[in-house]
């Protein structure tokens, strides 16, 4: 078991889940409540990583982070090195790759909040921000838990985007998925099995927790 890869993957997944929790909420809010007629285009862009092959997504992210892109040039002038094949680049790539896994559960749970509750909040003088913080967020708790957990678990297991954007640098971009691939390539099936089993157990535990937390019978308040 390569613990360096394991802890690097955990660090990556925690960072990505945290950023997506903050970034995904306003995006999901906009997707849910905006009446912009071209909103479907934005929805399609957000959902794209679900259907796009990770290598395709990884390739374009690599180009976008490289020294020829404005972002890459700006980052290079700022830090002295490019974003490609760095941990920071890996974080950006993973955020884009896992974006729909956070935004879609968030948006679905926002949409499930009764519109009349929002209307009642408005007639009681509450601003949109207060309505969001005091009504929509607490009533969307199961969707928030799902979105954060899925983005964490999805980042834990990503392979194609990591390989394209980060490569395979031990301690920098080598995640457990890459480690498993390396071990299989070297015919180290026992080592690959140990790491793969760990990933399987973690993913299963996270999903079990999500389903358990979303059980209505354990909800903080009973819904009718």
């Amino acid at each position, binding site marked *: 078991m390569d613990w360096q890869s394991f802890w690097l993957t955990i660090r990556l997944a925690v960072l990505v889940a945290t950023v997506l929790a903050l970034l995904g909420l306003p995006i999901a809010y906009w997707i849910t409540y905006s009446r912009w007629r071209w909103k479907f285009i934005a929805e399609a862009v957000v959902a794209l990583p679900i259907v796009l092959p990770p290598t395709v997504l990884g390739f374009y992210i690599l180009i976008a982070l490289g020294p020829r892109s404005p972002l890459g040039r700006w980052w290079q002038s700022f830090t002295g090195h490019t974003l490609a094949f760095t941990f920071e680049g890996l974080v950006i790539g993973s955020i884009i790759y896992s974006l729909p896994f956070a935004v879609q559960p968030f948006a679905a749970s926002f949409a499930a909040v009764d519109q009349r509750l929002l*209307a009642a909040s*408005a007639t*009681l*003088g509450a601003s949109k921000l207060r309505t969001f913080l005091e009504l929509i967020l607490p009533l969307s708790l199961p969707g928030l838990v799902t979105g954060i957990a899925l983005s964490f678990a999805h980042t834990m297991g990503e392979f194609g985007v990591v390989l394209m954007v980060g490569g395979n640098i031990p301690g920098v971009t080598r995640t457990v998925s890459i480690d498993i691939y390396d071990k299989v390539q070297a015919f180290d099936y026992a080592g690959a099995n140990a790491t793969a089993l760990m990933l399987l157990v973690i993913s299963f535990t996270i999903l079990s927790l999500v389903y358990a937390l979303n059980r209505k019978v354990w909800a903080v*308040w009973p819904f009718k």
Partner: protein
Amino acid sequence: MNVETKPDVIVEEERASSVRCALSLQLRKRFQTRDCSFELNVDLEIPAGITILFGPSGAGKTTILDCIAGLTTPESGMLNLKERVLFNGEKGIDVSPQNRRVGYVFQDLALFPHLSVKKNVQYGIASLPASEREERSRQILESFHVAELQQRKPSEISGGERQRVALARALVTDPAVLLLDEPLAALDAAIKSKIVDDLRAWNESHQIPILYVTHSLGRTRHCASEW
């Protein structure tokens, strides 16, 4: 198909000592679907006191209330609450629901399910100092006989109690007009009568226009005989 509706009929008005118009509205709201269009034209003058508005389902009663509350925007017209202009299509005035001072009790009450009775009632007066907030919520909960339920969630109280909490939540903000969208429809006559008595008692000292809409003529007659 193009349907044009007349405003619903005012069955009874219980006028306050001052009969001057407290709420006046002349609004046109249009709905367009694939199969038909529907135009609602409303011309109403509502004095302080209780006004009952009835009509069949789909006639646009809730839409009238939503227009008054600012939850939907009419195509044209005007809406005045005493001297305040809440909506004027020509002048482009459309005051937000947050700033209209309208109390609205929805048909399904729309109590916040995750908040206690007390927090539901205090939701609309959050900007007041804590002591005043406590005092006002205590008073209104006592007026509607639900003070002992304040720590419970809406799902933990009866239907009649929920109606009382919804009324208390709308009235604690000291609204300039109260809109009731069939909130008492599901209650039996005895409970309804008690709640109406409490509402009348409250309005004796406040004298605001209260607009009650219902789709049932029988139920309206029943209410009207009480009110």
